[in-house]
């Protein structure tokens, strides 16, 4: 336990005066066999822009690692943003872990291709990873717990030595691993990754791949990549091309064939 400054009790007393309110309603839906299910799904990258893809139908079983491939500009990012709840679909239905896509679900984590972070910002890497616990805290609450989960995630992505470094001194690959560690701490069951290998050197890439392909029946991964070579180890491959989505390779039998 770190020593607290003398004024700390004064500040903490403030929290006694406000009720705790969760960021979102509790999510009681369950992953019953299918993690993501879409019918006739269409979406546009911007609300008044052209349609990125139309009439997409697919499903992703729980625990399945799915690669979403396609050339640049084919709508991979748009599809991931729809699944994350950041972008509304223009038509069609989609079910994420048994509910409509929406914001405020701790069970879904999304990692953008180029995260828009304020830089510079006075933040240590540990604090960044700790932000993953916020989804479980809600308004008006200081995070006092979750340290073990943070340590585990830092260890998993080999960031323990960098934990006290300032975020703006990290390399692109280290930052990407830190954001992945945050998603781990969040305890997400569905991980939506947009080109996570883009900023990584070989060493960082090995660490991230090691993390993604560790057998874990509770984790469903959808990863967008423009490089078909990246999709080799995945259980299922979806391809977006010319606005249409097709399933290239569906996982059969046990989803964890790379255990």
């Amino acid at each position, binding site marked *: 336990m770190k020593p607290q400054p003398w004024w700390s009790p004064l500040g903490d007393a403030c*929290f006694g005066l406000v009720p705790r309110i969760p960021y979102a309603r509790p999510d009681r839906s369950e992953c019953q066999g299918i993690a993501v299910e879409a019918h006739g799904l269409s979406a546009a990258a911007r609300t008044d822009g052209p349609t990125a893809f139309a009439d997409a139908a697919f499903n992703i079983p729980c625990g399945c690692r799915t690669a979403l491939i396609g050339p640049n500009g084919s709508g991979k990012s748009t599809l991931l943003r729809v699944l994350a709840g950041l972008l509304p679909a223009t038509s069609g239905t989609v079910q994420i872990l048994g509910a409509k896509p929406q914001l405020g679900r701790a069970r879904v*984590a999304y990692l953008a291709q180029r995260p828009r972070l304020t830089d510079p910002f006075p933040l240590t890497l540990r604090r960044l990873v700790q932000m993953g616990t*916020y989804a479980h805290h809600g308004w008006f609450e200081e995070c006092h717990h979750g340290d073990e989960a943070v340590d585990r995630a830092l260890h998993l992505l080999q960031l323990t030595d960098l934990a006290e470094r300032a975020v703006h001194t990290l390399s692109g690959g280290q930052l990407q691993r830190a954001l992945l560690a945050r998603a781990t701490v969040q305890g997400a069951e569905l991980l939506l990754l947009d080109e996570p290998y883009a900023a990584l050197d070989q060493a960082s890439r090995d660490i991230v791949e090691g993390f993604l392909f560790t057998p874990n029946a509770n984790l469903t991964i959808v990863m967008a990549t423009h490089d078909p070579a990246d999709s080799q180890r995945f259980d299922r491959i979806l391809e977006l091309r010319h606005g249409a989505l097709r399933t290239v390779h569906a996982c059969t039998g046990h989803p964890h064939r790379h255990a």
Partner: protein
Amino acid sequence: MLEFFLEPLREPFFHRALLAVVLSALTCACLGAYVVLRRMAFLSTALTHSILPGVVGAILLGLSPYVGALAAALLTAGGIAWLSARRGTSEDSAIGVMLSVMFAAGIALMSAAHAWRDFTSLLFGSVVSVGTADLLIIGLTSAGILFTLRVLHKELELASFDEEYAELIGARPAWLRAVLLILVALGAVACVRLVGALLTTALFVIPSATGVLLGRTLPQVMGWGIACALFGGISGLYLSYHFAGVPSGAGIVLCCALPYLVARLSAPRH
């Protein structure tokens, strides 16, 4: 030498000004950390300048200047949000429009009242003008702002650093931005007596810019900001007391710039 420091302390008005400057330093430095990190310096300038027509109008109407100041600041914040919601006007230009329009309205009102001299303290601040009622308002406002910053600390930190993640977990960054704008308006209103409408923005920006150079975490940035604002505020008051021609706002801002300069020259390059 000792007399230089002790002499002003015998004046009751100086006690009030000291207390006001300490409260303002605490509030502005904590709030200013977000203003600086989120690059809202221009926005805070607009909010603080736009107070002028509100205060002048309220005095002419015989209302409390604080009511007018708050109304004007909220009007400006709302106007900026409304103007920049349309395509074709960036937030930057919207701020520029509101800032100049409100300030021009203030100048027009002052001219219409034929009372330029009476409003000098409003523009540049004055040590002698802080009364007991002002102190009460500054105290209540500061307490409210610091309380809000404390209970929303983790949300504001997250939304300032990674807005998209805040949105993803449901922490509503747009609301938090609005809360921050209201807090900046309240803070500006509280400081207007002491520092003046033209210079209040400096109290948000300079100490926190110093803090950003020196601190590694957000609480550290706020801590250094408070230290810088306290130093600048108290020495500025002394400057203003001993050199009667210097308005307190000018003295405080000049004395705040000193630690910033030292930090800027001595801080290691990141």
